[in-house]
């Protein structure tokens, strides 16, 4: 990855011919970036979509940026360290890795040391870092150091002059990296603290002198507003004579007075760090709130949910208390609700109520509402940890005061453990300090292993206080335990890393909060604002607005090294395991008496999993029974909850979403490479439309559908099974009686299997119930609240809501209990769409729209019945395909239809428009397959087409034909091919399902058919899979050619080497497939083969792969995954594009991948928008563009191919290599050949005829091949011999009937039972299974690609096959297709 080099046309165009070439390619690039001349556009106002507008136009009209495209940029994306590439071109992978890793470690170490105020060591490390970091990075590290040092010195000694001269002295050490404005700002702010005013003034003057020498303005210094108080700034302005025009607004003469009493960060008079003060103030406010509030958020009129005997819920509830913060703004609705004593609807009818007020008051109330939400959002995000700890303490104290001996509640334990742990952690920190002290005076060899480990993680672990460390560890362990399959225990490697990460994350949030508090420009909390919540909120809201405008907030923190995280995690977990003990009781089998014992709550052991020995952490059953009841309980990280305010708009790769905690724009699996690309793209402003799209998704406001919620809560509390809510499981599973000891092994095995299944199912439904409980509890807390879901994207650009539990992407129930916050009148069309929606959710979605409307109208009685008597009526809604959502529609429809004018009904329900097999839609458009396009509704049609039915019909036809021609297997499956049988394989065909995979899918469907003999399933599935593949391939001919093209390109890339690298082992190629989506997201396929390194921790050694290192790619996965990933990146683009357009039209827009949602009245608008987006997307020649991007991106790369050893050229190369060996005494390596080739090319391109002649005389493998077509030289493909394991292996699970019959026959027995079964049939079936057609894999096309080649390897320049021809389908036709998305 680190190999890409900045390439600017200027550098490349050395020779004039090369220049001309560069110009030509630049021209070519411009041509494929579709930029139609038509300049009509979507105006931000809600105009009708102009069908002829281009998406590129849409974006270029208002913005100067064209749609980002790698092709029209001066070079490709610059990767992290071009330094390495240029300085040490011959570095091996291992060396490069060491270099990067070292650098990243140094950065994070300095950050930790500075934050931990270990300045002596930090200074040493700074000197090391000076060598390897970029200028920008180093400046930041140095400035952080200066600032923290100054702050500490000011507080401790107050010796200001010495401090300044010390700081200046330090900076002298770093010659080529001079001080930047921030350094000067820090020094000047320090000087401002001098008691002797005159000396202070002099000092400032002296400092300003070298600075102004760099021809920078005073603004550069004063822009670091957090460093200066108002008076400091004015003083500097006066002394340095900075013109008023250079002064930031806050420090101007006429700045508003409210900002004048702010304190600067470098003010030693602020008695403690602001963060602490703030948190304290909040904690106090919260405590007051806690004391008055029962265990669950009060919601008048809503039953409390019966918790799954749970403690986790209590944490959740206490975390959620942020929602119920005490002082609600006085709004008319509250007066009404409280007076009448009716249900607490929260702010559900906020808008309706507000509208009743006189206009001048409306804004005031809205403002109050925003401030109130801002305030609570802050509490939600900042206080999760505190509240959990408080809760344990509370319970513990309760237990003590009750004088209870038996501990009924796990919370009481938790507090005790927390206390015990704190003492141990204190001691650990003490040991760390001792080790660190010793370090200065003792050589490293004299440290014990434990001490060495402490030296490594010491600086990091010290950054958080003991209480927090313990709380995080406990909560994280509990939370993790709930997210895993309880059967397996926690994998140690995962556990230690997760705890380590959580600790880092907490530290980052702390820092963020601190920066947020001090760095917001205008807003600096003073004591007075902290004491007055309303003032606080208001100030915060203002600050937010300003922040959004200026983007002051920067939330970058370096990543801690993985091994440090693992070590910290394991230290904390070991301590926890050491102290956490449970008292358990059982009956002694010998004496029959009840005994008690103290056992560890968690123990570390090993187990085998698929033959691999795994270290696991297991919870004691009693402990896990108490806590496993709730999935995802424990620490409610703020990122797990919806937001009360509109998410922070995305502005960079790490800025956006939550207000006070950071989430990355892209979810990556700790792949540095991906995030670097995204960072770079974001920096270049390539991703602004992605940001815009995500902001549209994030600004969709939601509210809990309280009517549906009430029904869910009611059935939940019955604790019985209901739809997909499993019933409550009684604690003890009633196993069937164990068979006799001497019983047949088969009988014992079946019994064990049955019991295991029971355990498995019980655990499953238990955890499912917990999951639902969790969702409902969150939903309940947010009833009547306006909520938002911040979104981010995965590496292909697909958008996801960040809060994982309750969101609209969830299951039917989740979707059922949510609706849009905003209510919009239905109108005629809206009413119609609402009816269609009802039909769709009922499962009646294959008919045309008129029929669906009619369907709804025919079911009016059912709708009213469902709405009025959801549980005590006929319960028609429960039989619907999506029952909970169906119920929600019934409520809306019933209410609307009861109005005099239903079109006036203000609807909140999202109406869904779903793509028909969306992946195939994109494929059909790419391949131009008309027939396929028609089957996935890209073509106008009176009725929706159904691809699955089409395929199943086609397959049936072939089966029928074969059966008539005497094909045995066809006769067996005749009449058994249904839509259901083929559906899954057709769907997954797009996503590159293999023949084996598809066969398994079809086999599992066939197994469910009652009249198909078990023995013939395998043969039948093999036969049908072949047919399904054949039919789909015929239908999507062009698309399949493209699919093959994708795979071929990806394979070549993944096996290629950047210029100048020296690895030549084919398993060492490090080139990943990278492409840019039409919206500008660089997609980097993450599939690599990490080397895991062993890290020994206190618990066990764990294997960790360092995310900063470059690993060889997994070329198979890169190849297999590229086609589906590319299609996903297109569907993601289509969605974000539609989101942007809908957002600009003022629609509320939500999406679940290929299902787009909006208000009923806006469906038509959305439909137009999404069709236009699709057309514009596919109007561009995406595949040619992709090819051009590849050619640009992988220019100069070489890749390894095999050519036929026995071809003329093959023979010649073999001979040449032999000659080389005898001449030079060693064989030439492939990379040696590449170097030779490079030399030859250079000579041939030279302007000196002699050199050219020399070049022509050189012989290399490529010169031998000359003009011959390389593809024609490939060795002949041979299909691999297939070893039929199936016959070699036996299967106990196969039907017994057949062997029983064979034995009877062999023994000549006719038993009475024998007559019941048709013996001959069974034997025939067994025979059929054995004789089923063996399909040669090579027949089955590129999906299967399992053949091998023989030949000799040579390196050739990376090139790509020509783009396959496209069919005649015109994507414009989508515009008239009614059922494209429906």
């Amino acid at each position, binding site marked *: 990855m680190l190999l890409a080099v900045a390439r600017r046309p200027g550098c490349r165009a050395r020779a004039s011919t090369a220049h001309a070439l560069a110009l030509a390619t630049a021209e070519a690039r411009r041509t494929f970036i579709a930029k139609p001349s038509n300049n009509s556009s979507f105006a931000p106002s809600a105009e009708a979509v102009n069908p002829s507008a281009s998406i590129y136009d849409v974006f270029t009209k208002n913005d100067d940026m064209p749609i980002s495209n790698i092709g029209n940029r001066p070079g490709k994306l610059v990767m992290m360290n071009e330094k390495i590439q240029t300085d040490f071109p011959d570095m091996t992978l291992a060396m490069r890795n060491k270099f990067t890793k070292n650098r990243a470690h140094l950065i994070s170490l300095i950050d930790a040391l500075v934050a931990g105020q270990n300045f002596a060591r930090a200074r040493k490390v700074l000197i090391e870092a000076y060598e390897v970091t970029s200028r920008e990075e180093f400046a930041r590290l140095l400035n952080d150091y200066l600032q923290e040092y100054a702050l500490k010195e000011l507080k401790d000694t107050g010796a200001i002059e010495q401090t300044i001269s010390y700081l200046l002295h330090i900076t002298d050490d770093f010659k080529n990296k001079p001080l930047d404005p921030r350094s000067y700002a820090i020094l000047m702010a320090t000087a401002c603290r001098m008691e002797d005013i005159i000396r202070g003034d002099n000092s400032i003057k002296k400092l300003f002198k070298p600075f102004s020498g760099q021809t920078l303005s005073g603004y550069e210094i004063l822009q670091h507003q957090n460093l200066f108080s108002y008076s400091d700034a004015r003083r500097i302005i006066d002394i340095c004579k900075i013109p008023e025009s250079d002064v930031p607004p806050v420090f101007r003469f006429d700045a508003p007075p409210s900002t004048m009493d702010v304190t600067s960060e470098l003010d030693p008079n602020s008695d403690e760090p602001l963060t602490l003060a703030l948190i304290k103030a909040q904690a106090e406010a919260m405590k007051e709130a806690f004391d008055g509030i029962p265990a669950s958020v009060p919601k008048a009129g809503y039953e409390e949910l019966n918790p799954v005997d749970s403690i986790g819920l209590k944490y959740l509830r206490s975390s959620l208390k942020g929602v119920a913060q005490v002082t609600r703004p006085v709004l008319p609705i509250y007066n009404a609700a409280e007076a009448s004593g009716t249900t607490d609807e929260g702010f559900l009818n906020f808008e309706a109520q507000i509208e009743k007020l006189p206009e001048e008051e409306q804004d005031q109330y809205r403002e109050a509402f925003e401030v109130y939400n801002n305030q609570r959002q802050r509490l939600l995000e900042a206080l999760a940890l505190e509240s959990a700890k408080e809760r344990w303490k509370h319970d513990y104290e309760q237990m003590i005061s009750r004088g209870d001996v038996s501990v009924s509640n796990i919370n009481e334990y938790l507090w005790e453990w927390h206390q015990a742990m704190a003492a141990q952690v204190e001691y650990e920190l003490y040991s760390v300090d001792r080790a660190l002290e010793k370090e200065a005076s003792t050589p490293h060899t004299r440290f014990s292993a434990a001490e060495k480990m402490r030296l490594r993680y010491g600086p990091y672990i010290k950054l958080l206080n003991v209480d927090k460390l313990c709380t995080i560890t406990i909560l994280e362990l509990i939370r993790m335990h709930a997210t895993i399959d309880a*059967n397996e*225990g926690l994998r140690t490697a995962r556990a230690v890393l997760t705890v380590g990460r959580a600790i880092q994350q907490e530290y980052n949030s702390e820092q963020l909060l601190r920066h947020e508090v001090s760095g917001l420009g205008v807003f600096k909390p003073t004591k007075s604002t902290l004491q007055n919540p309303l003032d606080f909120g208001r100030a915060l809201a203002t600050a937010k607005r300003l922040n959004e405008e200026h983007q002051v907030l920067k939330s970058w923190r370096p990543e801690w090294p993985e091994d440090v995280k693992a070590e910290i995690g394991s230290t904390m977990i070991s301590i926890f395991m050491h102290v956490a003990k449970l008292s*358990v009781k*059982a009956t002694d*089998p010998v004496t029959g008496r009840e*005994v008690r*014992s103290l*056992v*560890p*709550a968690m*123990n570390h*052991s*090993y*187990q085998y999993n*698929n033959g691999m*020995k795994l270290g696991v952490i*297991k919870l*004691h*059953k009693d402990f896990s029974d108490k806590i496993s009841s709730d999935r995802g309980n424990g620490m409610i990280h703020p990122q797990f909850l919806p937001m009360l305010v509109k998410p922070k708009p995305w502005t960079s790769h790490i800025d956006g979403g939550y207000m006070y905690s950071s989430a990355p724009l892209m*979810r990556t*699996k700790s792949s540095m490479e991906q995030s670097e690309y995204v960072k770079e793209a974001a920096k270049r402003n390539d991703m602004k439309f992605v940001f815009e799209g995500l902001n549209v998704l994030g600004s969709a406001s939601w509210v809990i559908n309280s009517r549906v919620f009430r029904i869910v809560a009611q059935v939940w509390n019955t604790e019985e099974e209901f739809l997909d809510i499993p019933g409550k499981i009684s604690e003890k599973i009633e196993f069937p009686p*164990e068979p006799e*000891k*001497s*019983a*047949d*092994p*088969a009988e014992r095995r079946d019994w064990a*299997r049955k019991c*295991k*299944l029971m*355990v498995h199912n019980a655990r499953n439904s238990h955890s499912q119930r917990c999951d639902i409980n969790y969702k409902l509890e969150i939903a309940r807390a947010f009833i009547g609240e306006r909520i938002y879901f911040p979104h981010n994207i*995965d*590496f292909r650009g697909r958008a*996801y809501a960040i809060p994982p539990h309750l969101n609209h992407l969830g299951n039917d129930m989740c979707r059922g209990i949510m609706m849009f916050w905003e209510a919009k009148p239905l109108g005629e069309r809206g009413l119609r769409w609402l009816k269609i929606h009802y039909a769709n959710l009922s499962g009646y979605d294959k008919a045309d729209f008129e029929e669906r409307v009619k369907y709804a109208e025919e079911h009016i009685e059912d709708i009213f019945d469902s709405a009025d008597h959801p549980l005590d009526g006929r319960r028609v809604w429960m039989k619907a395909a999506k029952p909970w959502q169906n119920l929600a529609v019934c409520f809306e429809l019933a209410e609307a239809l009861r109005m005099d004018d239903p079109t006036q009904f203000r609807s909140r329900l999202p109406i869904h428009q779903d793509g028909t097999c969306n992946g195939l839609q994109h494929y059909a458009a790419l391949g131009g397959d008309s027939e396929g396009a028609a089957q996935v509704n890209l073509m106008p049609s009176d009725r929706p087409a159904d691809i699955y039915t089409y395929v199943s019909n086609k397959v049936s036809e072939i089966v029928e034909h074969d059966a008539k021609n005497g094909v045995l297997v066809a006769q067996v499956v005749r009449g058994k091919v249904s839509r259901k049988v083929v559906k*899954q394989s057709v769907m*997954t065909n797009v*996503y*590159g*399902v293999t023949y084996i*995979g598809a066969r*398994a899918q079809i086999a599992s469907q066939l197994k469910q058919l009652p009249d198909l003999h078990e023995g013939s399933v395998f043969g039948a599935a093999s036969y049908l899979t072949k047919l399904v593949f054949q039919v789909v391939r015929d239908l999507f001919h062009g698309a399949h050619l493209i699919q093959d093209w994708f795979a071929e390109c990806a394979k070549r890339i993944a096996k290629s080497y950047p210029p100048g690298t020296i690895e030549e082992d084919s398993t060492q190629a490090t080139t990943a497939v990278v492409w840019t989506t039409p919206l500008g997201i660089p997609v980097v396929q993450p599939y690599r083969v990490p080397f895991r390194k062993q890290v020994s921790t206190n618990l066990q050694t764990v294997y960790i792969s360092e995310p900063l290192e470059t690993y060889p790619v997994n070329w198979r996965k890169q190849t297999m995954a590229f086609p*589906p990933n590319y299609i*996903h990146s297109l569907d993601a683009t289509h969605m974000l594009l539609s989101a942007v357009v809908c957002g600009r039209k003022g629609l509320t827009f939500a999406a679940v991948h290929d299902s787009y949602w909006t208000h009923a009245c806006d469906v038509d608008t959305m439909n137009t928008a999404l069709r236009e987006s699709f057309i514009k997307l596919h109007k561009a020649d995406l595949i040619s563009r992709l090819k051009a991007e590849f050619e640009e991106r992988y220019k100069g790369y070489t890749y390894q191919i095999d050519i036929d050893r026995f071809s003329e050229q093959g023979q010649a190369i073999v001979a040449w290599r032999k000659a080389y060996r005898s001449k030079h005494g060693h064989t030439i390596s492939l990379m040696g050949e590449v170097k030779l080739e490079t030399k030859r090319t250079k000579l041939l391109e030279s302007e000196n005829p002699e050199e050219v002649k020399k070049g022509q005389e050189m012989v290399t493998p490529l010169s031998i091949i000359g003009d011959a077509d390389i593809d024609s030289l490939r060795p002949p493909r041979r299909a691999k011999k297939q070893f*039929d394991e199936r*016959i*070699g*292996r*036996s299967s*106990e699970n*196969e039907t*017994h009937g057949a*062997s*029983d019959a*064979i*034995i*009877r026959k*062999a023994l000549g027995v006719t*038993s009475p039972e024998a007559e019941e079964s048709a013996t001959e049939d069974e034997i025939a079936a067994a025979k059929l299974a*054995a004789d089923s057609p063996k399909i040669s894999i090579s027949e089955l096309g590129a999906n299967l690609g399992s053949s091998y080649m023989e030949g000799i390897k040579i390196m050739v320049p990376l090139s790509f096959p020509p783009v396959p021809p496209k069919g005649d389908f015109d994507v414009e036709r989508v515009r008239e297709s009614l059922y494209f998305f429906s």
Partner: protein
Amino acid sequence: MREVFKRKLYDRTSFVNYERCGEILNELDLTEVYKSGEHEIIELYPCTGVWGRAVCELTKPSRHVALEHIPAFHEYSKKLNSDLPTMLPIAVDPYKWSVYTSLIKYGGINPQKLPSDKINPSLLVIGNLTTSQSKQLLDQFLVTVMYRNWLQHYGCVRMLLWTTASVASKVTLTQGERHRGRLAALAGLFTDITPVATFYEHKDFAKAIKIKRAQAQKKLGRVGSDVREKTTEFAPVPYNKKTLDANPVQLTSADVLGRDELVLLDIKPKPIQAWEDQVSMPAVEYVFRNLFILSSVALSSAVSSLGPGAPEYLSQKLPAKMMAKHPIDLSNEEFIELLLAFENWPFKPEHYFDITADADDTLQAAPAELTSSVLQTE
């Protein structure tokens, strides 16, 4: 014969040298136990049928049932042994438990149920367990000895099984040997196992030397011998004198059809022991399964796999000397002591189902994840 099976051996390795059968049979005391016409033989996977023929000719059973489901093998052995009147080849797969149920039900064999105090002279099991499934099958057969079910229900049925060297080494390692695992410990507790014949000639001896020493030993020399002693002597000749004494018959590649190194194991179930009544067999399975996960740490830590609190409890109940030993070093008596203590532990697990290691498709019946290979969300 090699030509006949040239193309497909179905992963099997079998003994095919009829001339040497006598040599091997001489090492066994078959005719002393199994009297002519008074016993029956069940043969699993006869493959070519050569070995089965020799045993049948020597012991003259009243019936010899050969269970073989692969058509090519079935047909071949049927033809080869068509002159033996008591031989009954049946084309079914002996992997299935139900096959035996049917066999007994329809009178295919009629074993006598005898007390489990000595080897049952009415029934002999012979077979070839050399496929990749064979360790699993051998494992299950050993478990039947533990439960005294399946054919062992009739009382201590002896088994003569061909298996591969790697599997044989897993079963026969004795107390103190480094790679001794669960299976060997269980086998040692319930049976007496002796290797009767082992493969001697290595296909590529120079290469074998190159393979890491320990690996080569495991492959070649492990079987039925004291490994520690061999470690020092392992050089050009992989078997020392002691090994040769223990394994009188050495096979060469000329005797064998297939890729693997063959070993013939003679498995004699031990007479029923008094402690067997005091311990539940699922508990025995559980203890062995979990104990050997940490086979080379002291028992005091290794027992942590038995459940939370187990180290504390067992340290009180068992001698400290024993707790300091590694599981591989425990003797049969010590295992029994451990099992009895475990059985009396009040806080032992409620059930012993091993849910994790189960690759059973009944538990993983969920349809194949559609796009798991490409979806990369958290």
